[in-house]
């Protein structure tokens, strides 16, 4: 634990986090970030009481972003949640929502069958009994994972290498985004390395209080990535929650060797491309891309403290117009919106974004986060793309 990131007494109870917590705005069942985080933290020295209000924190990080005193409020909540559930029997729902990587490993090889199996009414009924909402479609497994597609793809070799940490969603559900990243990197004379032995980043586990398992995932990932970041090779993510985990959350919640070096080498893919541009190394031969687009900033990108690199990058495409929705959190927060008990809250949080997008009538929603894309496209009916997909289109004309 980095001590400087863990001081509830820095909280001066100013209520900024209360004012900007989207969950507090949507439900009164959540006591709010100030109360659940720094205020109660002072009483958590000994045995902890089970406080179900804590369950409503979505770990979206808006409290941390709004805090003028640098208190990692959401992290205090996640640590408290882990402590609260330690050695307690957990529901099947909690297990499923946090172990989608394991489920995907089993289901993905039979993607067509699994997708059919998940979508039929009987399964939906069973899932609802477990606590998964039937009001939202679960994402569909891709017929070939990113890893399978990547292994089959013949890359051109370049002296400059980048490591790609795909994360579970891109691997199992959106491999095309991963392949877009590979194409964009190849265009910029970078060879993409996907190391053996990578695991889930741990974000869903942290969100459900399985901190010990998340620590093991982090340990595994650091070990698999170390040979590369030791050589100064950057580690790219294009899932903002994976990125936040590797850059910040591991350091806030865990104490692992080499975690600082991993963080120092981790880049959001768009952030990396912008840095290339700063060094005059970005290929800016973009062809115009037609269509009407609206951009949604993921909260886990805002929390990284790097602004909106994708918007800057896309603005280099000649004549390209993209509207910044700037309408707050989408409410999905990974798996939060899939739960029966939370779905209505997620939808209430998303309402201003839905409204903004529907008014704009885009051809596509653009967002860096898979959960945001899922929520916004299902909530508005407009399809959603990752910024790298657009960038690839601009390269390929």
């Amino acid at each position, binding site marked *: 634990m*980095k001590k400087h*990131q863990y001081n509830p007494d820095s909280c001066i109870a*100013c*209520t*900024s986090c*209360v*004012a*900007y917590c989207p969950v507090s*705005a949507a*439900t*009164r*069942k*959540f*006591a*709010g970030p100030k*109360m659940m985080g720094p205020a109660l933290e002072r009483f958590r020295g000994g045995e902890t009481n089970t406080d179900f*209000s804590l369950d409503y924190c979505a770990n979206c*990080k808006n409290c*941390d*972003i*709004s*805090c*003028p*005193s*640098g208190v990692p409020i959401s992290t205090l909540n996640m640590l408290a949640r882990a402590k609260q559930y330690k050695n307690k029997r957990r529901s099947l729902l909690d297990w499923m929502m946090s172990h989608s990587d394991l489920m995907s490993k089993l289901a993905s090889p039979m993607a067509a069958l699994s997708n059919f199996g998940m979508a039929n009414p009987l399964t939906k009924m069973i899932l609802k009994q477990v606590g998964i909402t039937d009001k939202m479609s679960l994402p569909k497994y891709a017929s070939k994972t990113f890893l399978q597609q990547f292994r089959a793809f013949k890359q051109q070799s370049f002296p400059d290498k980048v490591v790609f940490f795909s994360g579970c969603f891109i691997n199992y559900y959106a491999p095309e985004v991963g392949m877009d990243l590979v194409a964009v990197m190849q265009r910029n004379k970078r060879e993409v390395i996907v190391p053996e032995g990578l695991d889930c980043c741990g974000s869903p586990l942290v969100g459900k209080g399985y901190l010990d398992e998340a620590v093991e995932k982090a340990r595994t990932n650091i070990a698999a990535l170390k040979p590369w970041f030791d050589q100064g090779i950057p580690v790219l993510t294009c899932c903002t929650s994976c990125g936040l985990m590797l*850059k*910040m959350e591991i*350091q*806030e919640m865990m104490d692992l060797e080499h975690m600082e070096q991993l*963080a*120092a080498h*981790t880049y959001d893919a768009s952030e990396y491309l*912008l840095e290339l541009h*700063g*060094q005059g190394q970005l290929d800016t031969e973009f062809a115009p891309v037609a269509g009407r687009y609206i951009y949604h900033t993921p909260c886990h990108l*805002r*929390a*990284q*403290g*790097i*602004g*909106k690199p994708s918007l*800057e990058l896309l603005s280099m495409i000649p004549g390209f117009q993209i509207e*910044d929705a*700037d309408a707050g959190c989408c409410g999905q927060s990974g798996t939060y919106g899939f739960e029966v008990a939370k779905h209505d809250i997620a939808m209430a949080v998303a309402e201003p974004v839905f409204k903004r997008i529907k008014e704009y009538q885009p051809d596509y929603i653009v967002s860096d986060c898979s959960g945001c894309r899922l929520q916004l496209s299902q909530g508005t009916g407009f399809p959603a793309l990752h910024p790298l997909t657009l960038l690839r289109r601009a390269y390929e004309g």
Partner: protein
Amino acid sequence: MKQNDVIVIGGGLAGLFAAITAAKRGRQVMLVTKGVGAIAIGGGSIDVLGYDAQGVPVRDPVAAMDGLSADHPFAILGHQRVETAVQSFLGLCAAEGYPYLGDLQHNQWIPTALGRLKPTCLTPLSMNASSLKTATDVTVVEFEGLKDYCGRVMVDGLRQCPGYAKNYSLVSLKTDINDGRDLSALDVARWLDSESGQAAFIDRLTAAVRPGSVILLPPVLGTKPDYHLFHKLEQATGCKLVETVGLPPAVTGYRLRRLLVNCLGKLNVKLIEQANVVRGIIENGRCTGIVTGNLDRERTYCAESFILASGGFFGGGLQAEAGRASEVVFDLPVAVPTDPAAWSKEKLFFAGSQPFAKFGLQVDGKLRPVDASGKLLLENVYIAGKSLAGYDYCVEKSGNGVALATAYQAGAEA
């Protein structure tokens, strides 16, 4: 390496308004902030000069500026530049559909949550309390469960204010919120954002008040910077409504921040949140870039000029240790007495000004930092807001006014 025309450090009122001012001149602006700044939870009224150095209430802020010491930010700027800043702010709010009321020649007296009156200069229309002064009948509305606003305290407080012996009645209204955590003014304001909440509230309020009276209520008339509900309620009740200053989160400041952040978006200001500026890069008396130090690594952002609006000791822009104080980003000197005993008076809340309240950065006429001998330290860095020396916003009631005036000046120069 990220090149901008102007980088603003700080996202409080000073930082936001400086960024807007510079962007309106056509500058490419980036704003870097850690947290949302006090504006988000504050009362949203713009105090300019409420009390003079002797503690006497000020009627005309412009006239009273003549009595300020030479190192006061208003004295450095002069009347005209403060007036220009205020006009720019009023114009901005009006253009955004949320006009503010007031002028630099007059202070208004507005009720606080404790039923006292405080002087301020510019307020949202819904906080204009001139009708309270002339009213005969005043209805104080409180909400069941809203602990931060006690109608009885409001009535008792106001009764003691000279000239405010009115015919007060107290009304306690229900919201439709009856579950979960404690109620805040922001919760009630969110309820009143909804159409169902508005309809229910209009029914309950009109049944409880007589037309022609003045209604005092906590700041709950919606979270958005507009007056739709305010006008609707005045029409439905036939009364004048006054929102009082509230405890944090005070909603009225939240609305103003929302208005200003909306403007940033329209003006294409790049916003970098959750970033901690740790130092500046200085070459030959000029700043070429700033460095953010997040948990992962440092990043450098470059610009032609920089506006430092990072706040005072409380906001994290200045830091102090025994016998020494300094500015955090550029390590600029903060002049303090060498004897720590001279930093403060023993009684924290005595009637005058605490010496430490006026500690801060000394600047030239363009708000650029200078040392004790008046030598310019950084030629392209401009200071706005609470990191400036020479004023005590608590005692003077001048905080947001200094923030606006210095932010405008910095934004116009940078």
